[in-house]
């Protein structure tokens, strides 16, 4: 118990004294996940909105596939991205393996289906409500997409934060494609796994505390936005 107390105390010191190694890991984690979520938003939101308003053969199958991808095991995603980026893989020439870019790619693959699926649910619900009114105002199906995206903005930010939560807490995929290289691809989750196995609990605990803090903050923002969206009549699906 005394050992834990001293490790915890050391962990707090690392945080409060601004340990450069610790904060560089936190910064890299945030950079990777924020980039991944932004790219996922650029892909997932238009895809989700298109699936919500467009009608074409196979749409239902695509929605099922997209929903299934939300539960894709991260280690399998890591393995697939690894195979794509490895020296003998189709994208091996880019030499991205064991770089932050590889970790971003893995996180994009994990987060995009979440953003797309949540966007589709939100936009489909809103489109149903707006459909007749927008047609009455002469707004075409295609032109309705930006209107719907804007009016669903609170719920969509919630979807992005849900994606960010998944990305920042991810360990399986990023350790495979990032390699957990010190000062290069070492992020919070992979460092916690490594340092715990080495017995360096202070650093692991410090990162764990920050990770929990980020998770709580994200959840608090999601709850606040969900409440506001609900008050405006758009419940997050």
């Amino acid at each position, binding site marked *: 118990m005394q050992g834990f107390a001293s490790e915890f105390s050391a962990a707090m010191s690392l945080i409060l004294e601004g340990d450069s190694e610790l904060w560089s890991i936190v910064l890299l984690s945030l950079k990777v996940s924020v980039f991944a979520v932004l790219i996922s938003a650029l892909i997932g939101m238009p895809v989700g909105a298109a699936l919500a308003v467009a009608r074409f053969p196979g749409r239902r199958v695509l929605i099922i596939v997209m929903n299934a991808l939300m539960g894709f095991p991260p280690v399998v995603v890591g393995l697939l991205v690894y195979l794509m980026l490895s020296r003998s893989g189709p994208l091996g020439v880019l030499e991205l393996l064991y770089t932050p870019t590889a970790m971003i790619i893995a996180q994009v693959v994990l987060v995009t289906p979440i953003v797309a699926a949540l966007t589709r649910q939100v936009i489909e619900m809103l489109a149903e409500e707006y459909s007749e009114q927008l047609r009455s105002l002469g707004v075409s199906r295609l032109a309705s997409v930006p209107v719907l995206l804007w009016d669903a903005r609170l719920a969509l930010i919630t979807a992005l934060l849900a994606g960010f939560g998944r990305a920042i807490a991810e360990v399986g995929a990023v350790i495979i494609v990032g390699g957990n290289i010190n000062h290069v691809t070492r992020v919070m989750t992979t460092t916690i796994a490594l340092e715990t196995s080495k017995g360096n609990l202070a650093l692991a605990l410090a990162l764990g505390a920050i990770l929990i803090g980020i998770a709580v903050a994200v959840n608090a923002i999601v709850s606040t936005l969900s409440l506001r969206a609900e008050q405006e009549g*758009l419940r997050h699906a």
Partner: protein
Amino acid sequence: MRDLTLEIVRRLSVRNLEIARNGKALLTVPRLSLDGPGPTLILGPNGSGKSLLLRCLHGLIAPDRGQVEQDGAPLGLEHKARQAMVFQQPVLLRRSVAANLDFVLKRQGVPRRIRKTRIEELLDEGGLEGKARQSARSLSGGEAQRLAILRALALDPETLFLDEPTSALDPGATQTIERMIQRASNRGVRIVMVTHDIGQARRLAADIVMMQGGRVVEHGAAKQLLDAPESDASRRYLAGGLVT
């Protein structure tokens, strides 16, 4: 037998209109006409096809047979652009009151400076001055419907369709809405409105289309139809009898 060729704003007509679902005829209007400046009120019990007819006239529903025509030609986009519609449940954008009006003005290409002035005028007209920045979703039922009507009027329509706009409102809110509709009609906007409220028809209508079972059973000047209906269905409906 009354001539049933429908002309709205003189050049709009409906002929041989048919809509069926699962083999059941929902709307059958062979020939029907509306003359004069209106307001025209479409009256009838629930399920009589009033709202369906209104949506056909506005081009929101394509009939299985027949067509809505203007100047003898099928209703086109240029005609629809001169129409607006207000629904039973107002559908307001999740934006401020002013932004709801700005949305339609901007789509019409009205310059920003003029939009600002026009929004102020519209808000004054609907008694919503001081609520410009308020979220449209936080308005009361009556205020929300007033905003929906103002947004429709912002399109500067030739014809304004209204689908039971006061069915969920109290008498005070209903009176305010009716005044807005009457003012729009006095300015030359052709009003075509669905209601099941006989009192409202008496207060607003210049002419009435009486519907039952997806068919027009009678059409004529409001006073004549309300005081001396020709069809049994109209007589029963106006007498408060059950009409299905």
